[in-house]
């Protein structure tokens, strides 16, 4: 079983020498492994890339999908851009806020679910799109929310 350091060396091998291309897949791997990118994880990734933590942090903080603060076991992301909003995304989001007991941008009190509003997920005609742990649910309506909340609570 390889360590994160070793996995990152393998990732680096996919790209030419002397380029930093591995940083994005390396961060994704590190986040999968650790849940979120704490300062220590950033240092770990930097060492594996033979680079500096400042550089790695500069990259990680540029992108929306990298968590630089702790997140819950599950991530629920509701697209609230126009196409989804026109058909009720805000109501879906509010139903989730109510069902999970936290505001968008926060994690539920039991630490199980982090809820976020996100920009266009690329499923506009199948609105409203809710990404649950990176997998898209389509045509989500406010009425679908209670079942989703229960699903998440059941540790699905």
């Amino acid at each position: 079983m390889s360590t994160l350091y070793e996995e990152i060396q393998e990732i680096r091998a996919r790209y030419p020498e002397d380029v930093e291309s591995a940083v994005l897949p390396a961060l994704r791997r590190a986040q999968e492994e650790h849940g979120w990118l704490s300062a220590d994880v950033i240092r770990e990734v930097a060492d594996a890339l033979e680079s500096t933590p400042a550089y790695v942090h500069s990259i990680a903080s540029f992108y929306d999908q990298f968590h630089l603060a702790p997140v819950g076991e599950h991530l629920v992301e509701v697209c609230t851009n126009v196409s989804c909003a026109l058909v009720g995304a805000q109501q879906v989001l509010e139903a989730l806020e109510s069902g999970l007991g936290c505001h968008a941008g926060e994690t539920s009190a039991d630490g199980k679910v982090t809820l976020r509003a996100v920009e266009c997920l690329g499923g506009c005609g199948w609105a409203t799109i809710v990404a649950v742990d990176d997998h898209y649910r389509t045509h989500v309506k406010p009425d679908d929310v209670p079942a989703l909340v229960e699903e998440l609570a059941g540790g699905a």
Partner: protein
Amino acid sequence: MSATEFVKVTIDERTVEVPKGTGMVETAAAAGIEIPVFCYEPRLGAPVGACRMCLVEVEGMPKLQAGCTLTAQDGMVVKTARTSTQAAEGQNSTLEFILVNHPLDCPVCDKGGECPLQDLTFRYGPGNTRMTFPKRTFEKPIPISPLIALDRERCILCYRCTRFSENVAEDGQLVAINRGAQSMIATFEDEPYRGHFSGNVTELCPVGALTSTQYRFEARPWEIQKVPTVCGLCPVGCNISATTREGKVKRVLSRNHPEVDEGWLCDKGRYAFDHLHARDRITAPLRKAGPRRFEQLTWDDALDAVEAALRAGGSSTVTALSGGESVEEAYGLAKLLRQGLGANEAVLPEDVPDNLDAFRAPLSALRTAKTIAVLSSTPVVERAPVVDLWLKAARRLGATISYTRPAGAVDALVTDDPAHAASVEATNVYFLPLTPNGRGVADAWSAAGDGEPADVEPAVLVISGDEAALNPGVRALAERADTVIGFGMFEESFRGIADLVLPGTSYLERDGTTINLEGRLQRQRRAVLAPVPDVLAWLAKLAERFGVELSPYAANVFDEVAAKCFGEIRYADVGEIAELPPRAERRAATREPGSQTEPGSGLRLVAYKPLFSGPAVERTPELQFQRPNGELQMHADDARARGIRNGQTVTVSSNGTSLELKARLMRNLARGTVRVADGQQGDLHPEVEVRA
């Protein structure tokens, strides 16, 4: 060689001819027209066109173009804000957008009065604001190191500082984080900006976002004087400008010698001037009054005592030089001792080869070298920092740099070992001396007399300068001498070894010349009066007592030395941007085949003298955090072969002793070598093994 192709460009109502491909900002400048810029800085790499300050109208293009990204093509017609309302509107817009969030800090901002944002707003910007919403705010200022304060509200996100960190110093320390309007400049967590060149960002910053903590609230630009001089702390001899106020040095800035430093300065040269105000600064002659105690003397008594001691020593007087003296100081001392006493024996910290003048070249030539060999056990950046920047620039332009002896000829050789200089075939050779003016001091010493140095037991040891006084070899010699006379700046350096100490001065307090590692003669100008007399002044008085004619004025002393060493050059002609003399005639020398160190199974441990060490650095509190932090530099391949990961704690062992250090993988050193800062190697021997 093809002739430069010139093209004709029309800028506003003027036409100008420039070499094809010249940047538009320079082309306009050649026509006497300003194109205002913020992010444009050619030394940082290709122009990025980020700030949009330089918007100009180009005939044939519907949209405004970023002038900094344009290059001169024949027949181009460009209109700046002077003649194009569209361009003027565009530049006005840029300034309006910058000022949307920029705080009105001018009254309390150090940059005020020397601020490009102020200047350009006056020239091209709006007179008042239409922005009625709350500006974005940050906690401010925050120290990103003991040297530099960051004010994120003032930052206009021109990215000059991050581009410097990434593309010049390549230290990966100062970065932009987040995105869009939430972008900020930062270091990692609250770790300081550690690096040899961090201070350059305070000069690059066009606003008061990155400022020097040392200079905070110290002066306004209309209260200061700027003295052009040359740094005396390392053999590069960067050209600097000392900012003084009311007779005190307040800061040091780069003066940009395009061939030597290109406008960069290391943090030691920039910040260590604090040493001028050190608590243990010697301000009067001293005499030993106890094992570690001195008492003050009057100058008359001191000179009498020194004269008596020297007479007693006679030709058995040995001189230990620091290599930091000016040419004139070294010559004065040498003339006094060699001609006055027949004392010809001098100890220099190193042998600076003089047969490399046939291979000398400006440092800027390193940038365009295609093949470079760096054969230096000391990291280049620790001994001659700015040379490392030239090497990095060369590598970015595609040069191959080898850290082991090259098979064939190379364009440039950079080395700290004269033996390599003799045995590697290179068009240009850059020797890295240990001392700032070793070459000048050696030349001055030999020019001052004809007598043969005799290997004598030192009856009297004269120690010139603090560096010599701190040198273990010199201290050992001092034990054997009957009398030790020293001169330098700091009491601490001479405590316990000197019988008599005369006050010395800093390179910032003297007029004189030095020779840098290129072989370039440069002029140091007195920035401030020392609290003590010039070294030349009392050397002249002493010389008189021994019947030796010595002028107390550097100009006269220089002319005397120059006649013997430098050819037809007068003091006044050395110039503020000094020239490098042409290469000497190549002596028909046979290349000695150098020895290639056979790679053993072990690793060679080099304990290098770090840049951030020495008496000046020790007396600059803000620089203490830059001292090395217990890392073992190791080649990435050597590490991999031993299963060692970057950042891992490793055990370094040699016969009978071992140490734990953090491994830092690098590629700019030779395989088979590991490096640690001097003082952190414990009792390890030069042959070590490293294990995960």
